[in-house]
Every structure is written in C-alpha cells, then in structure tokens.
C-alpha cells in the first residue's frame, strides 16, 4: 500500500498501463501542454495533473495533445479503439460532453451492437466532473444521468484513490467502452492504494463504506464521502447506516442495494445530478419495484434542485447535497411511522 492522492492514483495507473501495454494511448487538450510555445512540450501534463510525465516517457505518438476539439477527440478515441489501440481520452470538463455527445452516444456506444458484435471498442473516456469549485453552470455538472442511460457504455464513479486506481486499470484492460467520471473535488483526497500492478476492481460490485441496521444510504462519487460523514454523525446518536458506494453505475450492483434495504427498510439515495430522470430516480424505481415489501418509509432522495449549477459560494452550497442534508433525510425516514 502507498498513500497517494486521487489525482496521482489516476496518473500512476495510466503510466503503469502505458508501460505494460503499448496499445495504450492518451489524448486530449493540454494533456501535454506547451506545444507551440516558447516553453515547449510538457508545460502542463493535463490541467488536473493527471498526465504529468507521460509525454516524456512515451512520446508524441502515444501522448497526443489535441486542439480544442472535443468531437475530434471523442471520435478519434473511437477510431483508435476500432483500429486496435486502447485510447484513454480526456474531456477536460465533463460538461463539454455537449460538444461531443454524438461521437460518444451514437458512435462509440453503438459500434459493437450495430456491427453485430464484430468489433470491439476499448476506449476509456475520462471526464472530470462535479461541483464544489464555484465554477458555475458550465464547468461543474454531474453528468452521470446521461452516460448511465447509454446502452453500450460502462460508467465508473470512483470515490477513493484506491477505487480510482482499481477501476481505471480495469477500464483500460476492459474491451468495452468506459466513461470514467472522476470528481474534480476528490483530486486532492489522500488514501491508501494497493501496490499490486494488477490491482483491478471488477465492475458492478458496490462497496459497503459504512455498515448499519437502521437505514441505507446509496451514493456515488463525491457523494460517498458526504454520506460517510452523515453516517458518522448519525452514529453518534445511535443510528446505524449502511453506506453503499456504487462504484459503477453501469453496470449497477442491484443486489447490494436490495439486500441492504431488505434489512433496513429505509433508503436515502444521494445524487449530485439534477433530480429528474437520474440515478436517484433510477435507484428509487429499482427499490420500489423489487423491495417494496421491505420498505418501512418512503424513499428519500437528496439531490440538487432542478436548476443549473449556480456560481456564488452561498448558492452552490445551497445547490449541492451535503452531509447535513443527508443526515436530515435519514432522520426524516426514521421518523416515518
């Protein structure tokens, strides 16, 4: 085990996989940085420092600095993957998915199905996402609802440095296309990461981040740490919560959710995305459909309101779920008789 930040877990995993497999290729805006400037290449290494040193180690053919052209990045990732490479593409902010949606949704996601299973498209699309930086409406969004809805795409939402490493490595080695939703606010989070260069986390297996008998909290990405804080606070009052970290939203670990709700009878689902047609509603529907008899109280959803992400600190705080909001939702559920 080594202690490292979430961003370094991502960078190191890419580095190791590029060393292991020469088919692994990185592309994106400023993943090298400095090309065409007096400073020269390697000025940046990705604005999130997730590709530092890759260019020096692997050169321009495998670490491809692109112009600001998200559709070309996404499409090129698809073409590279169809042609036998294992691209790891960075869309600098997940919000830019709007620019390149077609290449992900109509192309990469559907190649294998449309072609009758005759192709593989092992592309990894890294999308730094989420709020917390007062970056306003176009640089803060959680987009899990869009990509989880896409047949053909797998969606990962690592909540810890170890999961960032294990899930990303599995993504790079996986033969299906993957969207990797790394949360910007987690980049500086520190944690233990296994040293094993083959450490992978299989998809569709949730992590039980806290265990308790009274309520189930389902969360993903940055919401997991909020849920953990809420659970720890509630534990002070003798309220025990299961905190289920989904890890992957497609595939999703239905069994982990249903097994927990069958014990607790109460579920709070936390989602950073807007409240309509989202993971929150999806998981609520799952529980209503498959664990209805176990429920002792209405399902509670802790989500932002149906608004864009606001800028001002007070407004962004009001917008986002928080440990206090999650704890309040658990208490509300427990009070229901």
């Amino acid at each position, binding site marked *: 085990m080594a202690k490292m930040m979430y961003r370094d877990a991502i960078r190191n995993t890419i580095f190791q996989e590029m060393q292991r497999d020469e088919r692994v290729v990185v592309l994106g805006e400023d993943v090298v940085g400095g090309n065409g400037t007096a400073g020269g290449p390697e000025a940046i290494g990705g604005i999130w420092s997730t590709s530092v040193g890759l260019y020096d180690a692997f050169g321009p053919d495998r670490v491809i600095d692109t112009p600001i052209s998200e559709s070309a990045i996404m499409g090129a990732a698809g073409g590279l993957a169809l042609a036998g490479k294992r691209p790891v593409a960075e869309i600098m902010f997940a919000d830019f998915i709007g620019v390149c949606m077609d290449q992900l949704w109509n192309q990469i996601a559907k*190649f294998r199905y449309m072609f009758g299973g005759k192709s593989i498209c092992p592309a990894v699309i890294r999308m730094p996402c989420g709020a917390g930086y007062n970056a306003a409406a176009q640089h803060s969004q959680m987009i899990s609802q869009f990509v989880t809805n896409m047949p053909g795409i797998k969606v990962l939402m690592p909540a810890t440095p170890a999961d960032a490493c294990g899930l990303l490595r599995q993504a790079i080695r996986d033969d299906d296309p993957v969207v990797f939703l790394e949360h910007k606010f987690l980049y500086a989070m520190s944690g233990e990461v296994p040293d094993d260069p083959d450490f992978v986390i299989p998809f569709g297996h949730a992590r039980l981040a806290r265990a308790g008998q009274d309520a189930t909290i389902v969360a993903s990405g940055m919401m997991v740490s909020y849920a953990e804080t809420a659970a720890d606070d509630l534990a002070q009052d003798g309220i025990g919560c299961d905190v289920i970290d989904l890890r992957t939203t497609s595939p999703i670990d239905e069994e982990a959710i249903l097994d927990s709700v069958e014990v607790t009878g109460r579920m709070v689902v936390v989602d950073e995305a807007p409240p309509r047609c989202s993971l929150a509603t999806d998981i609520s529907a799952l529980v209503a459909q498959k664990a209805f008899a176990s429920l002792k109280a209405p399902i509670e959803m802790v989500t932002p309101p149906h608004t864009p992400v606001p800028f001002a600190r007070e407004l962004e705080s009001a917008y986002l779920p928080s440990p206090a909001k999650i704890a309040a939702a658990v208490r509300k559920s427990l009070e229901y008789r």
Partner: protein
Amino acid sequence: MQLNREALTRAYRQMKLIREFEERLHEEIQTGEIAGFTHLYCGQEAVAVGVCEHLTDRDKIVSTHRGHGHCLAKGCDVEGMMKEIWGSQEGLCNGKGGSMHIADIDKGMLGANGIVGAGAPIAVGAALSNKIDGPDAEGKLAVAIAFSGDGACNQGTTFEAMNLAVVTKAPAIFVFENNHYSEHTGVDYAVGTTRDIASRAEAFGMKVWRADGTDFFAVYDTFRDVLEYVRTPGNGPAAVEFDTERFFGHFEGDPQRYRGEGELDRLRAERDCIKIFRAKVSGAALLDEADLDSLDADALSAIENAVTASRAAARPQPENVLDNVYISY
C-alpha cells in the same frame, strides 16, 4: 491509363456489382420487403472503386449513410451485405445495423454511418493508430480514409477532424464526393465556397487534389498520387474532391422535386461512370464489348443470388435483441 487487363476487369466488375446492387435495391424497396431507410450510391461507383482498388486490408475507411458502394469496394461480402439490408440474422451485422451501419473490421471497413459528418473524426483516430504502427518494410504508412459528401463538408466534426489530422500529421485522407446535393438542398446554396470543397481542406493546411468523379481513370490516377503522398511518413493528411452524380434521391422514396426538367435522363446519358468506363476501354481496345457484357451478366447473377439467399436467410429471434451490447456486463 496504366491498368492491365486483369485490373481493368476487376475495376469494372466492382463498379458494375455496386450498380446492380443499388438498382436491385431500388426495385425491391418498392415491394415493401425491405425495412427502414436506404440511401443509394448509384452514379458514384467510380469514386468508391477508383479509391479502394488501391487499398489493402491494413488501410481503413469510414463511410457514410450512402455506404453500400464503399462497403462493396472495400471487399465486404455481397451476400452478407444483402442479407443485412434484408435484416437477416445471417447478415454481416446479424440484422442489427441495416443499410446505414454495415461494417467489416477485418476488411478495414470501420462502418457506414447514419450521422452525416460523424465519420471524419473516427477516420482520424484510425489514421493515428496507423501512425503509431509506423511504416511497413517498404517505408509506407497504412492510411485511413473518411468518405464525406458535400453535405458532411459543412459539419463541424469534419472541420475538427481535418485540423486534428493536420496538427498530428495523421495519415488520413478526406475524400469528398460532391454529388451536388446535401439531402434535398443544392451545393450552390449549402456550401459557401460554392462548389469548391477542396479549397476548404486546403485552408486547413492540407495538400489537395480535384478530379472528375464520373471518370474511373481520373479517380484512379489522382488517388494514386494522393496515396503516394499520404503513405510517406511525415507528410500528414491530404484531401481530394471528386465531382460526381447521384442518380437516385437522398433516400429511397424521395420524390426529388428539386431536380430540374430532364436532369436525371441527362445525368444517366452523359455522366454515367459505367458508360464512360465502357467507352474508354472499348475505344482503346483494352476490353471488348463481349468481355464487358459478360462481366455485366456476372454482376447481375451475383445480385440475383444474393437476393435469393437473403429471402431464404434466417430471421433474428426476439432474444437476439440483447446480443452484443457489451462484451461482458
């Protein structure tokens, strides 16, 4: 005209196979037997064949919604394609793709595409892969080709792809087939640089060529030069614009009210790449009329066999809807 008899025979057979494939589909669609949207390549055969006759399976192409010609020219199986358009489980894509999504990765055919302009970025990705793989024993790179029409030349994806290819010196070739119609709108209206797509590519920093797309030999000779340039490491991408004609509507069922009086008859009489090919080769005594007629008969019977096989081919079962979304899930 440096082609030997064997190469000429091959080229004509391919062009004629595409022609008969499309003419037959035009008939079959009217019977209602074929579902969905179909966009016919009829009239543009010299472009697909003149380009693809130079390629090997290492070279990749990405096609368009009007993709049957590119597929056949790149070596996709005619019966597998016909069965796919019939929606059969035995089709090239198990009935999952249909007319607009035919692909054969082993042949370097990375897919027809239902989204106008979507192919170019994918082709650049394939070209970047070729660049990583490096030159072969003879010092030549494999290439990746984006076929685009005058409609797709107005999509931002095409611009992004051209710039990315130039910036990364990717061995990509942008083949623009200007058939003068983007769906139901004329090129004189829709392309600001009137009737000149190549100049756009040139403005992105590419070397460009132009040729008459109804003349197989013009296409073939021009594309040899384009390929020679792009296969050379360090040169990067190139573009070529072929002036060509579309004999049918945008899609099958298109009433084509935008056509001028007698336009289609004139195109069939004066701008038919197959007639032009026949006139050139028989005029030069390279192939005689009897040879060509016999190739015509071969093409017709190949299509007849493909249609017969498609009618008898196995249908997909309802449970097949779940196949091949993921490799593992």
